[in-house]
């Protein structure tokens, strides 16, 4: 039974989302979990490694196992490292991973990107589709690694169709265990907001995101997909409904806002994301839902009730 199960590798195993994906797939596949940061104990059926993709030893995992697929969720976030180390790990490391997939004929590759790549510009139309030019790198250098990772995955998608790459660009992932900026903010008792700005936002529950990843991986329909439920809320309303107390930050002139953000040095108001606190980035997730016949099970109410219950 053990030997019949196909093997897959899941990166970013220290993250809550990867652990949920592993939990869901571990009976169906033999899972090798890897992470840059730490060796995670995920119980007996799951082999776990702490490994840097840029080190030669990473190839040993591919030599040892014949992989049926890779779910690439691992990325070092802005709060964990500086811009150059992030580029090295997230972009150069991903390139190494893609090359190993080619060398060892891995036929199914799923890559998690982010809606941040579109950039928060005041001139964004609503319902950005997958063909919308990505502008985040124009607006802040701190998102260059996210944009480059996304571009790299797109290049491999078309240049190496045998890899069957599926790229997912989700909206804000939220819910239990999620440690991204907006999830940390909604978990806090006090939340910074920019005075006079309440951009429209989308949130996807971590369980729905887990299901989206598993469905996309299993159905193997290569392409680039936004993932977001068709539901929206103003940022300040989201903060209020999560039971946070708002801290108003001056929103103009831009220099003052940046200075306050740098001085406060809050995880929940990083300078490079300031525009996301001002301008909406609403993505159209209809291609994903129609291609994979996907239904969202959790709503905004579930997400905010979770954060409220933490207070």
């Amino acid at each position, binding site marked *: 039974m053990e030997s019949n199960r196909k093997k897959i590798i899941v990166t970013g195993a220290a993250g809550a989302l990867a652990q949920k994906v592993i939990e869901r797939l571990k009976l169906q596949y033999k899972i090798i979990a890897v992470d840059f940061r730490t060796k995670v104990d995920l119980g007996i059926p799951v082999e776990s490694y702490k490994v840097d993709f840029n080190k030669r030893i990473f190839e040993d995992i591919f030599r040892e196992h014949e992989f049926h697929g890779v779910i690439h969720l691992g990325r070092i976030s802005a709060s964990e490292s500086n811009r150059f180390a992030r580029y090295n790990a997230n972009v150069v490391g991903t390139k190494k991973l893609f090359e190993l997939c080619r060398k060892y004929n891995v036929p199914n590759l799923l890559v998690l990107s982010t809606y941040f790549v579109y950039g928060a510009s*005041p*001139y*964004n*139309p*609503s*319902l950005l589709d997958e063909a*919308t030019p990505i502008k985040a790198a124009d607006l802040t250098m701190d998102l260059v690694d996210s944009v480059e990772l996304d571009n790299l995955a797109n290049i491999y998608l078309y240049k190496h169709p045998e890899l069957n790459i599926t790229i997912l660009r989700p909206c804000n992932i939220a819910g239990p265990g999620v440690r991204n900026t907006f999830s940390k903010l909604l978990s806090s008792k006090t939340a910074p907001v*920019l*005075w*006079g*700005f*309440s951009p*429209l936002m989308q949130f996807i529950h971590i369980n729905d995101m887990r299901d989206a990843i598993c469905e996309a991986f299993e159905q193997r329909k290569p392409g680039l997909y936004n993932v977001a439920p*068709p*539901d*929206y*809320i*103003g940022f300040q*309303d989201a903060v209020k*409904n999560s039971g946070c107390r708002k801290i108003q930050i001056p*929103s*103009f002139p831009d220099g003052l806002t940046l200075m306050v953000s740098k001085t406060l040095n809050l995880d929940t108001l990083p300078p490079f994301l300031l525009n996301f606190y001002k*301008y*909406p980035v*609403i993505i159209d997730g209809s291609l994903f839902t129609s291609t994979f016949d996907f239904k969202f099970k959790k*709503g*905004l*109410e579930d997400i905010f009730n979770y954060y409220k219950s933490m207070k």
Partner: protein
Amino acid sequence: MPINSSKHNHIKMSCIHCNLNVISIFDLINSILSIMPGNKKISLEEIKSYFDSSEIEKYKELFPNNIGSFGYDPWGFNLKGIKGTLGVGKFMYEKFFRVEAFGLENIPKEGRVLIVPNHSGQLPLDGSLVGYAMMTNPYAPRLPKAMVERFFPTMPFVGNYLSSIGAVLGEPNNASSLLKKEEAVIVFPEGVRGSGKLFKDRYKLQRFGNGFMHIAMKHETPIIPAGIVGCEESIISFADIKPLAKFFGIPYFPLAIPFIFPTKVYIHFGKPLFFDKEVKNEFEIEARVKMVKGEIKKLINLGLSKRKSIF
């Protein structure tokens, strides 16, 4: 007991203060209305009647059908915003500007349509009045979206407020998405050239952009020209202080009388114009734009001929 009585006194003082504010606003409104012929004063009860919260029930069936669980649509329209504004809109339309709308029967009850009026007035008052006329249209009421200038989303409070009542960033992809959803869209092809024009240029149509024609043709959408008379005199601007506009990052900085005059407004909606997709070059598009401009000019002249007094 003494604590209670001081609290009571405090409340009493607040109420007196509040009443004084209400009375002074009430007096201000009546002084403005006294400019109008016949000097029709308005009672406090009549003002209150405009802000009856049950009014919104009449229009609920007009709201977009893609409103999410917290009352937002993908462009930021939300029930809270429209509810808070309906009374002001009604007062401005019925009492302040005493709008007379003609040709409302030309607006189709359903399906995509572009409403193309002349633009003026420094503030987006004309768009609001056209929107209110369409919402209360006895033949076919519908709630339109209005495309607004690109600098509004960058303004604190203003951007969010305008989105909440149905304004949408003037961007071709937004117009396309709305028309695909069979919505009615108000578009001002003069853009800031129209809204920022000086008093001396009133009723002189400024250069039209061609974008609206491309969108109408691409989505096979009828164009309803509209001529607005009255808004051009509501806010009087004598000059555009360009250095200040540059300093604040806005397209114009009017040297204007800081007052909205209660001018009488006439809106004439024309017959729908249909344009097929076939054109040989951009010159043919320009000819079509010129034709729409000509229709608007005729409707403006019709309004001017009906007007006996500015007020």
